[in-house]
């Protein structure tokens, strides 16, 4: 692949970070990159839809209002069903995370755009926000009772030396799996799309083999549909697990 050179065939090239401008403050390098640009774009788009959608609040909703209401009801239903009515306090956080990830995943599917969520630093930050929220809320609500999370009820006492470390590792693995899932799915999906796109180009340039070049192209169309589903599902799973972790923080103990 790399031997072919050129950015059209290199499947990793799409993840390059480009600096548009930078300031050096306090000995740190603060750069405005394409990643930051797409984050701003995503936030702007969400704000536009939500503000424009809730502007009229008509009894018979228009298109934008329907969209905004659907998004609200979907996330509210998710929070209520997996974190209970007490979890609705965290609705703003879950809604922001869900919309942010969903919009960035979908923007990234447009050719020639940048996918912010395909960088692990972004997903780790999002997962750490959730993790730290769970820790703070858990200790603030339950005090030391939060440690009940590591004490599953109904196991014989002599297995506790084995079960408690496993529970602790399981708890600490949450931000890892939370972030790696989103990052790996977006990265893998976009690389696959690029590789099959490269196949089309290579076959077109391979003389007689150009006859079968529509095959990978057809495959890309199918993959694109799958990636659209994955883009939504990953945002859904991320928000869903956020709700479940918040539920753990509100009600520790098994």
């Amino acid at each position, binding site marked *: 692949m790399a031997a072919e050179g050129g950015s059209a065939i290199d499947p990793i090239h799409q993840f390059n970070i480009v600096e548009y401008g930078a300031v050096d403050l306090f000995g740190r390098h603060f750069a405005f990159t394409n990643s930051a640009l797409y984050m701003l774009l995503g936030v702007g788009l969400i704000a536009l839809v939500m503000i424009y959608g809730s502007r009229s609040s008509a009894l018979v909703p228009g298109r934008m209002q329907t969209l905004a209401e659907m998004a609200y009801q979907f996330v509210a239903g998710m929070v*209520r*069903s*997996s*974190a*209970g*009515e007490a979890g609705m306090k965290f609705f703003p956080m879950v809604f922001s995370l869900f919309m942010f990830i969903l919009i960035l995943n979908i923007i990234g599917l447009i050719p020639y755009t940048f996918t912010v969520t395909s960088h692990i630093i972004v997903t780790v930050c999002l997962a750490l926000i959730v993790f730290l929220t769970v820790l703070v809320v858990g200790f603030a*609500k*339950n005090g030391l*009772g939060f440690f*009940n999370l590591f004490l599953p009820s109904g196991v014989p006492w002599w297995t506790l030396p084995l079960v408690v*470390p*496993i*529970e602790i*590792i*399981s708890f*600490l*693995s*949450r931000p*890892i*799996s*939370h972030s*790696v*899932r989103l990052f*790996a*799915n977006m990265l893998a999906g976009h690389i696959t799309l690029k590789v099959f796109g490269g196949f089309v180009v290579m076959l077109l340039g391979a003389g007689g083999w150009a006859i079968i070049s529509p095959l990978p192209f057809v495959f890309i169309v199918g993959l694109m549909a799958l990636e659209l*589903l994955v883009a939504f*599902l*990953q945002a*859904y*799973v991320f928000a*869903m*697990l956020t709700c*479940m972790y918040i*539920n753990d923080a*509100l*009600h*520790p*103990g*098994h």
Partner: protein
Amino acid sequence: MTAPGKDHDAEKREDEALKARLEKLQSAVSGARGGIQAEEKREEAQMAAGQDNGRMMSLAFRMVSDLVGGILAGVGIGWVLDRALSTSPFLLILFSLLGTAAGFYNVVKAASPPSKTGKDALPPEP
């Protein structure tokens, strides 16, 4: 209907014709309604199947990354502790085993039906 100029038989015939027509229309309407209902039901089933697929897929994503996350967390903790306490490689081995167990434990937890979600969640312990 009881126009004076008409004779009784003709009136009866007309009534019967109207009745037959009404029945035909009714059956046609109910048939169309049944067709629409069947179509709606089929669409609903399709949507439910799609949602089911989505739910299954999201569960699969969760399980895979939970398993990998547990192993990674165990290995990471073991490696850091090994470096800090210079007990290499014993803690790495121990914690990678514990991490694998934690990964499988995560998967089992994800696979078992939720017991304490939503409204029937346990009240917060005092």
